[in-house]
């Protein structure tokens, strides 16, 4: 049995679950992706407007006591994630600069929708205190009510607008 580039979903999911378990055992917390990106924008904004960012009701906590916003667990997870995905694609010969889209949409429209979807997701992940991994998977494993409500609402939201953007994908 050769796994190749694309694994069947259950073994792939189990490996993601194992990375989450390792974080529980080593760090006593879960994995995540969106938190590091929030810290990144806080850091960039701080380099431009230090005083305003330190006084910010939301970003200020990242700088409390002279802390550096990027010196945090979630940032190191994200660095590992970048390297891991790069190495996996490289070993599979799948490193390609390309724009992924359905057959019925132009590249520029696809990029416009990617930007628009990104903005909505970025806002939503902050409101929900996490994204699919940090809130959904970790909270799901911890049996958190909020995480399961979040996950179900993600699919409700997706299905609500799926029909309107179908030309992008199918």
């Amino acid at each position, binding site marked *: 049995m050769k796994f190749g580039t694309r694994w069947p979903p259950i073994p792939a999911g189990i490996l993601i679950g194992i990375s989450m378990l390792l974080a529980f055992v080593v760090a006593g917390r879960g994995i995540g992706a969106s938190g590091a990106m929030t810290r990144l924008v806080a850091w960039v904004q701080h380099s431009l407007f230090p005083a305003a960012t330190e006084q910010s009701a939301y970003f200020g906590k990242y700088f409390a006591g002279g802390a550096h916003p990027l010196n945090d667990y979630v940032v190191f997870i994200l660095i590992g994630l970048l390297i891991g995905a790069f190495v996996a694609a490289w070993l599979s010969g799948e490193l390609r600069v390309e724009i992924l889209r359905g057959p019925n949409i132009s590249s520029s429209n696809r990029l416009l929708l990617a930007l628009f979807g990104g903005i909505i*997701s970025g806002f939503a992940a902050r409101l929900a205190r996490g994204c699919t991994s940090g809130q959904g998977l970790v909270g799901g494993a911890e049996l958190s009510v909020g995480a399961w409500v979040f996950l179900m609402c993600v699919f409700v939201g997706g299905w609500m607008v799926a029909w309107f953007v179908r030309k992008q994908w199918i």
Partner: protein
Amino acid sequence: MDLAAPFAKTGVISAAMNLWLAIPIGFIFGYALFHAGFTDSRRIAWAFYFKDVGVPVVMFSAIVTGMLGLWGMSLAGLIDISLVYMLPTYLLPMAVGGVLFGVGMVIGGYCPGTAIAAVATGKIDGIVFVGGFLIGSLVFGDFFPVWGDFFNSDYMGAFRLDQWMGIGLGATVLVIVIVAVVGTISMIFVQDLVWGEKDTFTKSRPFMKLQGALVAIAIAVGIIFAFFPTESFIDDTVETPYYIVPKADMTGMAP
């Protein structure tokens, strides 16, 4: 209790070592995301059309693995669960955030982790999505006073499904395993019904046998868990700072 895990909180490893170890943990996460096919925005978006139900199946498998591992280690006395950070529930903000997140996911084709993995493999739409995600995060933070009160509303502490349903934690774990298995089978059924059988590779015989065995193991472990009372997994009378996040937590303080 004098348990070794979690290592960073029992002093087995230093805080600096904990950060370094996050890199190999993230590496495994990213490596698995690529092989799950999640660096391809189409595969993620197709989940919402039942054209490729890989996303929910991978998510179910990851949750069940993490869940059985975490609570199993606690049951076996290998990890001090009171030192594991439990995510608090803010019900309404999480529900609204979830709906918006799903909208963004089907429009953008990624979620944050998969977008970062896509960036690492050279996908331009992934780079643009990440750019948008950073803008969205910035807007949330800079205009925080506008929605800060809502963000902090409906707080329920570290509220678990077993407490909500009023059944034992072990039984809840079994319920989740069953939900995952039934959900997976029914979604694959819908996919085949609507789009026809196309995926012959990952549904080849050896793969199905392997996956069947893994599902059987998960169900067996879930059944064993169901026999244990909640107290053997977690002591709910202990409220450590890691377990219950106080209402006035740092992350939510509006001025």
